């Protein structure tokens, strides 16, 4: 993802408890404008509405939104599919609005998506990030992603990208990890339900 370069000093950080943040899986058309607004705000190049639809219609269970007091403050949009004989997940967009950063929201959003990917049989997860995006690189590094390759001048602004990759352990090799991931299933399935009529969100 290419991020905005202008680092406006807007929005002082907000005080909140981690438990105040509510995570929901993509629940339908009413979530689309929320996701679009967030992503358009933070990523430099606007995505077409078709791009969003492509992701959220085909893989609604891989997209999550974070709400604080009814406001959408973060989102992750993903996909998965066969790629050269491996089943791989792909993180397309990840955004947390400035006042809410540094509190683990992005980590939680991505973690939820990756867990669903694991359950769906993904062997690996990938994404691209600008080589200058320290925050995202640190975040994904902590989750176990490696920088698999560098893409020369990937962005039209001439900046290189890293392809980040997370190799998921094969269950027979490391059952303990999969179990750990499965333990949180209840949580996941709850939030996986479309929040029908959850108008308190906005």
């Amino acid at each position: 993802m290419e991020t905005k370069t202008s680092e406006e000093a807007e929005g002082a950080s907000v005080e909140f408890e981690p438990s105040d943040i509510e995570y929901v899986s993509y629940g339908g058309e009413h979530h689309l404008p929320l996701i679009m607004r967030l992503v358009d705000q933070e990523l430099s190049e606007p995505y077409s509405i078709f791009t969003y639809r492509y992701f959220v219609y085909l893989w609604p269970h891989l997209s999550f939104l974070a709400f604080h007091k009814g406001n959408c403050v973060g989102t992750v949009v993903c996909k998965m599919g066969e790629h050269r004989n491996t089943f791989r997940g792909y993180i397309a967009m990840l955004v947390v609005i400035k006042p809410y950063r540094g509190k683990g929201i992005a980590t939680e959003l991505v973690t939820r998506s990756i867990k669903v990917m694991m359950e769906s049989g993904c062997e690996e997860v990938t994404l691209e990030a600008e080589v200058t995006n320290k925050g995202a690189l640190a975040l994904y590094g902590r989750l176990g992603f490696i920088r698999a390759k560098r893409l020369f001048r990937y962005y039209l602004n001439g900046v290189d990208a890293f392809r980040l990759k997370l190799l998921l352990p094969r269950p027979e090799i490391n059952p303990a990890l999969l179990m750990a991931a499965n333990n949180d299933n209840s949580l996941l399935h709850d939030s996986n339900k479309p929040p029908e009529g959850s108008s308190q969100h906005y």
Partner: protein
Amino acid sequence: MAERGEGGDAPLPASIYSDEQTVWADVSPLLEAACRDLRDGELIHGENFSLFAAMSALEIMDPKMDSGIEHSGYHSIEEAIEDGAAPIPLSFDRTVDVQCTIDIMDHFLACEATWHKGHSLAQTVFSCIYLLRLDRTSPHALLHSYCRIMRATCAAVISVVSDARTHEGRVVRLCMGHYWCCMDFTTCVGLSFLNSMSLEEDLFTMAYGLPLKGEGDEKCLSMLNAVEETISRQLRACKASSSKKGILENIEPLQTNLDLEEGYCKALLCRLRFRKHFYHVLMCMKKPQGRGFELARKHIASCLSELAYIYNSLEFLGFNAYGSCQNDIEDSTTASGRQPVGFDASLNSRLAAPTPPRAIKILSWKKAIKYFEKLLHDLDTICSFSMDPLLEGILRFVVQFQKSQPDLVARAHLQRLLVQDGKLYGRDPVFDVICRAAAVSDVPKNSGIQKSEIVLQLGQLAINLLKILCTNAAWQRRKLGKILQDWSVIYVQLELASKRDFAETPNILTDVNVSMKLSKHLLIWTEEQIYWIASRFLMLGFELDLYSPTEYCMVYWYMYVVLIKLAEATQLRMGTSSDIAKRKGKKKRDLPKDLAKDSQIPPMVLLLQCYICLSEGLTMMLAALRNEHKIFQRPSAFNTEEERFIQHFELLQRAHVPGHISYMLFKESTSHAQFSTLVRYNYFKDAQRIAKELRSSFSSDSDRLVELRQIEQVAEHNWIALNVICQAGAEDPSLKISFEFSHHPCFAIATVKRS
């Protein structure tokens, strides 16, 4: 559909029989209904009609379908010209005309550099209306000759880059609809498709529809010379009249303001001369087998001095820019700071595929000059290359050359020098090169070995390797990782073949004996190349910043393993080559004893030994930090270090480079590392000692001396850090340890700070 209802034809039947299973049906009403139903932003999605299919139907850059296209005020070049966007002359005031012509020249330079740096030709150099309609400019000799040489230069540069095509990677995002498609989307809709179409050189050489070749471009130099001659006479005349020596010749001045005559003449002359010499450089370097290099170097020197004059014209031109005082020219594409006349990047934006016609930023004039300085220095390095016949020397040269991060045009020139017509320097058959490298003394004549499948393949691999080494670092690393597989397959084949030869020929005939020797040499040489490629692959990972500090430990460990193998293979090869050197002077049967006696270790192997020590030292220091200080570890939610090990070394492991290496082995060799033993047996001290001893062996090689100095420094710093950490003990939480690459791009030094 458009025909429907036209001319009041009879209405079409609802369906037309086609064959037993199919009929033709008119779907227009259905489509019309669907169109009425669709709202803005909606899209049909069906099982066999995906978003990608829909997007593929859109014509990017068609203003009707791509609403993101940058609209020019004009629909065509002709319209722009009619509207006076590119007047000839540029002004009826001859002073202004000259000023504007200089601006055009400057902007051209900026465009050219921007093109070299990776934008399309159509949006850079060919955004010039004058260039797009070159014939129009013929009444204006100055502009005409300049445009012509610009065009010829572009064509010459394109030809080098396309000759040297290695499909250097540059994935560019696809543009969809009126938005940029996010890059992740391109991944999902088939990055392979993009990969194949958007390589760095492809983008570079893309010139569809541009009037790149024109009649008479071969005369561009003589035209330019004529114009240069006129202006230098004008300059002489002006100098003569100002020094009151009287007018030498009766010459009409360049423009009307006589106070500015000298300045403008000079500003033009250096610009014209730069063009002339640059074109000569390209032509000289084009000569096969480096025959034009000597002359090319002279032109490079002239180019550089003209560039300096161009730069110095800044003061004069900036001051005279429309009377106004010199404004900020840092971002400007001209020395005067003015906008040039006659450029419109959006006019031929439809030719810019595959990059969408979004406005691009042209490099500033100052940056363009810097770019050309670097390019010329890089070209000079190539021209001064001794054209070493030994592969080892070539590999070293290329790696050294790449250190300064040359851009595409320079790298393409190097590649074209190294490989032409499948031969080294377009001169030496690869087989000879390999035999020389593998220290094969007597190649069997007419044995057909040159034509054997394996040897042919080996030659192909060597050629590919050279080409890959000329690409940008990111692409290079990916390719090196991939070709390892091919090299190791060849190795296995060679091994089998040499065993077979042996088995099939119990009574050793001389010819067979020779060919056995050959395959033994080739085997050793191939192994050496494999480990050389692997070590380069691992080291490039540092230069590309692909490893995180928590991964350094395993990377240095792997590097250590690979370097040991490389040193062994190198020693073997050098052993066999000194064996040959001796054979020539001695009787054959003396050989075995001698070899054992003076098996001195060659300096090259000792140099590798230094790196082995550094790698091992860093591995153990990092391991001890992990074991005792619990730092540089990374527990992660979704996988373990083992997965990261597998990912980083996947390509090496798949090629069995080396065999029997596993994560378990890494763990075993590092899990007991601790500082108390490390300080007693210190790898860094060893590295330092060997490096010092080696100085005399490399006393005439300045690059090697620099390398030795680096090794000593890395060793020294790490040795000190090791002691500090050891003394402080694991309990000291105030110790902040980090790794930096301040003395070597791949070998880090530990820095210890107290917080």
